[in-house]
């Protein structure tokens, strides 16, 4: 699908970019991270499912290859532009009205903490239409409900084309809920992010 004016305009107008995914999402999200210029002029939040107590190299790998500032969310951090935040393992990440983060250790959702749904829903209330969200590959339906809430608030909602995804269930669940305004392959997603 070619990128139309609507999608490009709304991407440009977004203050916040949400990237969510589970199994099979690391590669495309890593590519996004490498792509972003230092002054993207947006806040980026990454929510990737991962195991607690597993000090993966994800954060380090992202930080080493990103031109943007990068940090794992600490309680009450303020959301700054030109910064990539990673939702920490074993917490849910929420956004407060004053655009600061708050964390929560309540029950896992879809066996996941961080839950993509929780952050997406919370962002939808604060950022409304000034937000772009992308749901990538994954083997469970987390994120679909949250993406729908974002769409209802006017955010630009995108899923990775299930045919293009390593695991189709996550983007497929969002499509089934009619949560995705656009279904794009990774090539188009990367192209959009450079507009």
């Amino acid at each position, binding site marked *: 699908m070619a990128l139309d004016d609507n999608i490009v305009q709304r991407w440009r107008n977004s203050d916040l970019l949400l990237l969510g995914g589970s199994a099979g999402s690391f590669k495309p999200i890593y590519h996004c991270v490498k792509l972003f210029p230092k002054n993207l002029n947006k806040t980026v939040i990454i929510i990737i499912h991962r195991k607690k*107590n597993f000090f993966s190299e994800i954060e380090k790998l992202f930080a080493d290859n990103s031109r943007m500032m990068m940090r794992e969310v*600490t*309680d009450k951090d303020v959301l700054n532009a030109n910064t990539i935040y990673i939702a920490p393992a074993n917490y849910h990440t*929420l956004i*407060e009205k004053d655009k600061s983060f708050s964390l*929560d*250790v309540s029950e896992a959702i879809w066996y996941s903490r961080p839950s993509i749904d929780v952050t997406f829903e919370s962002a939808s209330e604060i950022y409304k239409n000034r937000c772009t969200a992308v749901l990538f590959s994954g083997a469970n339906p987390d994120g679909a*409900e949250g993406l729908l809430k974002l769409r209802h608030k006017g955010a630009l909602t995108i899923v990775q084309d299930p045919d293009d995804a390593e695991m189709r269930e996550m983007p497929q669940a969002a499509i089934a809920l009619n949560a995705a305004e656009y279904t794009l392959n990774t090539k188009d997603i990367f192209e959009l992010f450079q507009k």
Partner: protein
Amino acid sequence: MHDSVETITAPQVIEIIDLVKQIYGFDFGSYTKASLKRRVTRIMQLKKLQFYDLKHILVNDSGFFQQFLEEITVNVTEMFRDPSFYSSFNKQVIPYLASYPHAKIWCAGCSSGEEVYSLAILLQQAGLRKKSFIYGTDINTECLKEARKGIYSLRKIKSYAENYQLAGLEGSITDHFTILYDAASIHSELKQNTLFSVHNLVSDNVFNEFQLITCRNVFIYFEIALQEWILDLFYQSLAPLGFLCLGAKETIRSDNFRKKFKVINQKENIYQKIGS
């Protein structure tokens, strides 16, 4: 998981907070709103209540309020949550506690007691159990009942086995429990030097002097002003050079309190009281 009830709005959350404060005296006004909103929505979903029904039942049924209180506070906890914290604790805090003839410990926001018993196991392995005493406090009386019993499902205890091992402790977690069918009961000697009681960090005061206070994954539910109010309470409750342990993602932000607490371990958020 489709919404079967309406989603509550931010002003409606404030309405509920005000109502609870007026009727029951519990003040959730300085709790973080995004999390509260999730909790209230969850209660409405569980009990299949619309916003109006929730208000009505809160006003007219004090029995319901107890359930409300249990649900609105997050009581999810683990034994040896963040194993790296416990291994750092062993190296950096235990030697300090060992230097006292008697160590008093306050575990603030202890929920169903898992953290208190994790500390008790650590102290036992360091040979300090008999000369230390752990006070576990929470606002939730139902959780405190569970904590006093010290009986957990075997499935739950087994799920902490990985934490236990990663924390670098001797033996295995089940060594500290008596297991009967699917229940795991903490050994009675680990319960001996513990006391669980109600304490509300928002409204209650200093009740003793401690060599160590742990308050992990509690601050995340509080706005910064309330966090500072409680930091002051902790400061006053600590003996000189006493230790304060916060959760892995919680930090002391204000310059004022940064002067009063020295960072012992940046990553694990272990602090030590300095000044008078």
